[in-house]
C-alpha cells in the first residue's frame, strides 16, 4: 500500500507509539472466499421447509382514497395461500412509532395503506403463494378501486394554505420547523462588504444497492418465536417498531442477517416490510419470503432527502466568510419513517470545514406525495455540505477570487484542533489546508488552470472543481432530542463478545451487521493484535443473529460507526478476557498477573520469560477446571458494551453530534460539450483522512465507493416525478446507475491524523459526504465561465445545462 504510506502525516508518526502488528495492514478480507465462490449467504439464498412467497400490490395513485379492495379472485387462484389488505392490518397491528413531536407524530403509518394511499408505489395489499410467479399472477387478479384526490409534489407548495394535506390526522404537511441561531448573523451582515445570495436545490436520488430489500419471516408455533431473516441494516434498532406494531414480545423476535448486498443507509427503514411479511407468516402458518423487485425498490423503498435552500453569505472583499444565513425546506415524502432525524443530522457539520461563527438556519421539513425518504450514504449532511461547498465557490466567483484561496482563507487551522463549532461539534483533529493542497498537487491544479485558459481560446471548455467536506461518523442519538425531547434515545453503544474456547480457539461476535465493509476482517485484525495471534486464528461470526451476537439497540452498520464502535467494544471485551487469562496464566506460571503479556499465541511472563499456550489457558478455563485459581468462575468469555462520551443538546441545540470527523478533499477536471450540455470527467483525485486506519485497503475501497455514488448522483441518478406524481425513473432503464464506463479512474491519497477521542485514533469512513456532488457542480460552473452560467442544482442533467447555455447565448 504505497499510497497509504505516502499518506502518513508527520503528526501521526509522532504519536504512533506501540508497534501494532495487524492494525494498519492491508490484510486480504476474510469474507471474500465465500463471496468469490458463490457461497455467500444472502437472504434469497435461504430456503426453509414449506416456504411460500409474497408479492405486494402497490398504489398506482400519488394520493387517493381507497374505495375497496377485492381479493376474492386472487384467493381463488390455484397456489394462493392467503392475502392481506390494509383494513385487516389496521385491526391486526398498531401504527408504527413516530419519532417526531406533536402534531406530526399523530401520523398513522401501517405496513399496508389504510383508507388512503399517499404516494404512487405504496403497498395496498399482499398475496402469499406457493411460488413467486403465482404470487405475481394473483396480484393481477386483485380489484382495487380508488378515488384520486389532489396531491402535492413540491415542499414549498405543500406549505401553502389550501394545499392538499397528506395526513389529515397531522393537520398540515409540516413535520418539523426549527431555527438554529449562533453568533450574530445580523452583525455579520452589517460588517460585510457584500452579501452573496443564492437559491439552491438538492435533488432526490438513492444509493440503490444491487441487492434489493429482502425478508424471510417464520413464526415458530412451537417456541413462540418470530424468526426474521432480513438484510436490514439496523436489525435491533427496528425491534421497537416491529414489536409495537405487531404487539409481539420483543424477547421472542429473533433478527438474523447474513451477507448483505450493500446497504448505504437505504436498508435501515425496511421495518414496514418486516412487519408485513411477519404478519403474512403468522396468517399462513408458513415461512414467507419476500424479495423486493428493483422497480419496487426504486419507487417505494426510500429516496434521499430533497432539499431547497435560500442562502445569504456575508463576506469581506478579501474572501473572508463572516457567516451563513440559510432557509431550508426538506422534502421527506409521504411518511416520516426515520424522519425528522434528517432535519437535525446535518447539524453535525454545521459550518463545514470553515471558521465562521455566525450561523443561522431556519429549517422546515415537509411531507409531499412522493416516496418517503430515508438514510442514504451521507444522510442529511451531504445536502448541507453541498450547499456550503457550492456557496464557497459562488463567493469566490462573485469576488473574483480563486476558489482554493477562499477555502484556505476560511478553513479551520490544524492548530485550532480540537475545534468547537458554533453548534457544539467537537472536531477531533485534522489538517484541512494540507488536505486541500495535497489534492491540488495530485490533480495538478495550476497546470489545469493554465491549460484551461489556453483551451478556451480554441473553444474547448475545461472546468475544475474542488470541494473539501467533513465525513462525520459515529452519531450521538441525542441529536434526535432536538426534534422531540421525549425521544428515548441518546448516545451510542455497541457490543462485542470474545471467547477463547477449551481448545484455544478465539471466537468473536459483534453487534455490527455488515453489508460489505469487511467487519470479519477488521475485527480479526484488532483482536489478533490484542492477543498476539494471527488474524487467521480469530474467527468472527458472519452477519448478525440476535440469538447469538451481543447487541445494543443501537447496533448496526450506519453513520460510519462500525470501525470505531466495533473497536471500542472489542478492546473492552479483549481487556476482560485478557485479565482473566492473565490470572490463569499467572497461576500456572506462578507469576504476577501484571507481568503477563500475550505474544505469538502464548501468555508470557515478562519477568521469567516462561510461557503457556493460549489453548492451555482455554483448557483450564473450560475443561480442566480443577486447575483454576481458587474461587475463579470457569469459562473464558467476555461481553463488553462500549459507549463514547456523549452529551445531550443544550437549550440552543448545541451538541457534539458525532464522535469522529473524517474529511476529504476532492478535485475534478471535466470537459464540457457546450453544444449538448454533456460533459465528461477527465481526471478525478481524492485525499482522505479518516484517522488511523485498521485496514488501508478497505479504507481505500470505501473512499472509491463513496466517490462513485457522488459521481452517480451528480451526473446520472435522479428521481423525477411527472405532474401526476408518477415516478419517471422507476427502473434501471431511466434511473441511471453509472457503469464502469461512467466512473472515471479515481486517484487517491490518504492522510492519517488520529482521532483525539476515538479508540486507537480511528475515525469513521465510508460516506464521503457526497463530495463529488459539489466538486462536479463547481467544475461545471467553472467550465461554463465564458457563458456566465450559474449552477443551482445538484444534478447536472445535460438538457438543463444546455438550456442554461442557450439562455445566456441569447443574451450575449
Amino acid at each position, binding site marked *: 500500500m504505497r499510497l497509504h504510506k505516502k499518506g502518513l502525516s508527520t503528526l501521526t508518526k509522532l504519536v504512533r507509539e506501540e508497534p501494532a502488528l495487524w492494525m494498519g495492514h492491508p490484510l*486480504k*478480507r476474510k*469474507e*471474500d*472466499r*465465500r*463471496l*468469490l*465462490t*458463490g*457461497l*455467500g449467504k*444472502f437472504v*434469497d*439464498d435461504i430456503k426453509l421447509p414449506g416456504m411460500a412467497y409474497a408479492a405486494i400490490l402497490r398504489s398506482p395513485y400519488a394520493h387517493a382514497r381507497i374505495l375497496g379492495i377485492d381479493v376474492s379472485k386472487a384467493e381463488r387462484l390455484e397456489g394462493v395461500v392467503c392475502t392481506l389488505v390494509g383494513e385487516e392490518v389496521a385491526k391486526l397491528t398498531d401504527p408504527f412509532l413516530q419519532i417526531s413531536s406533536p402534531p406530526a407524530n399523530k401520523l398513522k403509518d401501517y405496513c399496508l395503506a389504510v383508507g388512503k394511499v399517499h404516494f404512487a408505489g405504496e403497498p395496498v395489499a399482499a398475496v402469499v403463494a406457493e411460488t*413467486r*410467479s403465482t404470487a405475481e399472477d394473483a396480484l393481477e387478479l386483485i380489484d382495487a378501486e380508488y378515488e384520486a384526490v389532489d396531491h402535492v409534489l413540491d415542499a414549498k407548495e405543500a406549505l401553502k394554505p389550501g394545499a392538499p394535506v397528506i395526513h389529515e390526522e397531522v393537520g398540515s404537511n409540516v413535520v418539523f420547523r426549527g431555527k438554529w441561531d449562533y453568533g450574530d448573523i445580523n452583525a455579520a451582515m452589517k460588517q460585510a462588504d457584500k452579501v452573496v445570495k443564492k437559491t439552491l436545490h438538492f435533488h432526490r436520488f438513492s*444509493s*440503490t*444497492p*444491487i*441487492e*434489493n430489500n429482502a425478508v424471510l419471516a417464520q413464526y415458530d408455533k412451537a417456541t413462540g418465536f418470530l424468526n426474521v431473516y432480513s438484510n436490514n441494516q439496523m436489525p435491533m434498532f427496528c425491534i421497537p417498531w416491529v414489536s409495537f406494531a405487531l404487539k409481539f414480545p420483543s424477547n421472542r423476535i429473533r433478527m438474523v442477517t447474513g*451477507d*448483505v*448486498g*450493500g446497504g*448505504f443507509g437505504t436498508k435501515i427503514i425496511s421495518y414496514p416490510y418486516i412487519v408485513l411479511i411477519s404478519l403474512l407468516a403468522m396468517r399462513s402458518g408458513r415461512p414467507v419470503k419476500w*424479495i423486493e*423487485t*428493483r*422497480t419496487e425498490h426504486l419507487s417505494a423503498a426510500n429516496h434521499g432527502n430533497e432539499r431547497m435552500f435560500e442562502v445569504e453569505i456575508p463576506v469581506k472583499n478579501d474572501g473572508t466568510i463572516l457567516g451563513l444565513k440559510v432557509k431550508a425546506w426538506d422534502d421527506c415524502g409521504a411518511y416520516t419513517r426515520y424522519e425528522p432525524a434528517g432535519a437535525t443530522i446535518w447539524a453535525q457539520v454545521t459550518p463545514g470545514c470553515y471558521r465562521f461563527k455566525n450561523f443561522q438556519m431556519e429549517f422546515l421539513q415537509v411531507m409531499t406525495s412522493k416516496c418517503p425518504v430515508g438514510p442514504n450514504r451521507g444522510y442529511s449532511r451531504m445536502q448541507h455540505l453541498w450547499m456550503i461547498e457550492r456557496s464557497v465557490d459562488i463567493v469566490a466567483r462573485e469576488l473574483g477570487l480563486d476558489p482554493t484561496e477562499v477555502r484556505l482563507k476560511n478553513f479551520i487551522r490544524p492548530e485550532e484542533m480540537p475545534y468547537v463549532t458554533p453548534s457544539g461539534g467537537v472536531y477531533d483533529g485534522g489538517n484541512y489546508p494540507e488536505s486541500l493542497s495535497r489534492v491540488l498537487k495530485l490533480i495538478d491544479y495550476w497546470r489545469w488552470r493554465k491549460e484551461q485558459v489556453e483551451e478556451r481560446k480554441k473553444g474547448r471548455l475545461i472546468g475544475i472543481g474542488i470541494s473539501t467536506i467533513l465525513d462525520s461518523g459515529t452519531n450521538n442519538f441525542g441529536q434526535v432530542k432536538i426534534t422531540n425531547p421525549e425521544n428515548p434515545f441518546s448516545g451510542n453503544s455497541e457490543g462485542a463478545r470474545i471467547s477463547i474456547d477449551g481448545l484455544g480457539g478465539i471466537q468473536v461476535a459483534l453487534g455490527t451487521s455488515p*453489508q*460489505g*465493509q*469487511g467487519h470479519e476482517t477488521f475485527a480479526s485484525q484488532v483482536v489478533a493484535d490484542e492477543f498476539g495471534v494471527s488474524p487467521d486464528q480469530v474467527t468472527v461470526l458472519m452477519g448478525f443473529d440476535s440469538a447469538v451476537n451481543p447487541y445494543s439497540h443501537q447496533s448496526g452498520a450506519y453513520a460510519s460507526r462500525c470501525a470505531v464502535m466495533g473497536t471500542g467494544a472489542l478492546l473492552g471485551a479483549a481487556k476482560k478476557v485478557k485479565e482473566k487469562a492473565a490470572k490463569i496464566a499467572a497461576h500456572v506460571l506462578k507469576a504476577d498477573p501484571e507481568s503477563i503479556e500475550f505474544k505469538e499465541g502464548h501468555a508470557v511472563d515478562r519477568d521469567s520469560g516462561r510461557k503457556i499456550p493460549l489453548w492451555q489457558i482455554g483448557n483450564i478455563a473450560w475443561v480442566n477446571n480443577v486447575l483454576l485459581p481458587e474461587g475463579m468462575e470457569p469459562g473464558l468469555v467476555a461481553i463488553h458494551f462500549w459507549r463514547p462520551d456523549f452529551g445531550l443538546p443544550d437549550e440552543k441545540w448545541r451538541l457534539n453530534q458525532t464522535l469522529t470527523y473524517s474529511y476529504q478533499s476532492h478535485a475534478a477536471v471535466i470537459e464540457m460539450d457546450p453544444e449538448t450540455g454533456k460533459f465528461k470527467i477527465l481526471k478525478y483525485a481524492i485525499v482522505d483522512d479518516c484517522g488511523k486506519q485498521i485496514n488501508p*485497503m*478497505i479504507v*481505500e*475501497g470505501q473512499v*472509491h*465507493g463513496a*466517490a*462513485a*455514488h457522488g*459521481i452517480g448522483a451528480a451526473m446520472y441518478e435522479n428521481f423525477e416525478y411527472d405532474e401526476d406524481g408518477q415516478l419517471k425513473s422507476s*427502473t*434501471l*432503464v431511466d434511473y441511471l*446507475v453509472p*457503469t*464502469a*464506463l461512467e*466512473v472515471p*479512474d*479515481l486517484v487517491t491519497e490518504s492522510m492519517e491524523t488520529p482521532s483525539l477521542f476515538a479508540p486507537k485514533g480511528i475515525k469513521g469512513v465510508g460516506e464521503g459526504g457526497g463530495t463529488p456532488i459539489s466538486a462536479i457542480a463547481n467544475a461545471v460552473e467553472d467550465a461554463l465561465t465564458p457563458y456566465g452560467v450559474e449552477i443551482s442544482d445538484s444534478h447536472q442533467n445535460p438538457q438543463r445545462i444546455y438550456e442554461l447555455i442557450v439562455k445566456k447565448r441569447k443574451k450575449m
Partner: protein
Amino acid sequence: MKLAKLTQKDDLVQIRCKVNGDAYTGTVEPRTLLVYFLRDVLNLTGTHVGCDTGHCGACTVIMDGKTVKSCMVLAVQAEGASILTVEGLAKGENLHPIQEAFWENHGLQCGYCTPGMLMSSLFLLQRNPNPTDEEIRRGIDGNLCRCTGYVNIVKSIKAAAKKMRGVEVTA
C-alpha cells in the same frame, strides 16, 4: 406437416443442459427464467438477481461460451446448452486466477455483484488476454457495482490478465 407438440400455457417443458460440467434434466414452466432454474431448482445460489430489466448483470453466467444475463433468458432457451456459473470457476480448493486477483486487489465489497462480474471478466479475458483499461471497462459495462466504484475491479481484472498470461504479479 407435423407440428411440434402443441403445448398449453400450463404445460411443463423438459430441458436438458450442462451446468458446470454436470448434466441436468428437469421440467420447468416455459416462463421460468434461467436464473431461477439455477437458483431454485439446481440450488446454485451464487448467481444473483438485482433488477427486473436486465441492467445490473448480477445474474451473468456463461452460456455456450458467451456471457448472458440469466434473468433475460428463459430456462427453456438453455435446452442443450452448456452453462458456467460462479460455482464452476474454482477447481476444488484452488481458486480461478480471476477470483484470486479480485481477492488480492479488493475487487469486491458486499460481494453481491461479484459472481456476475467474475463471469464477465472471464469472458473478456478469454477474448482479449491483454486488455487496456478502456477495454476492461467496456467489457464490464453490463455489470453494475455500487461498492467499489469499479476502480479495484479494473485493477483486479488487469492483475488476473497477467496471472492468466503466466506473468508473475509483483505487489
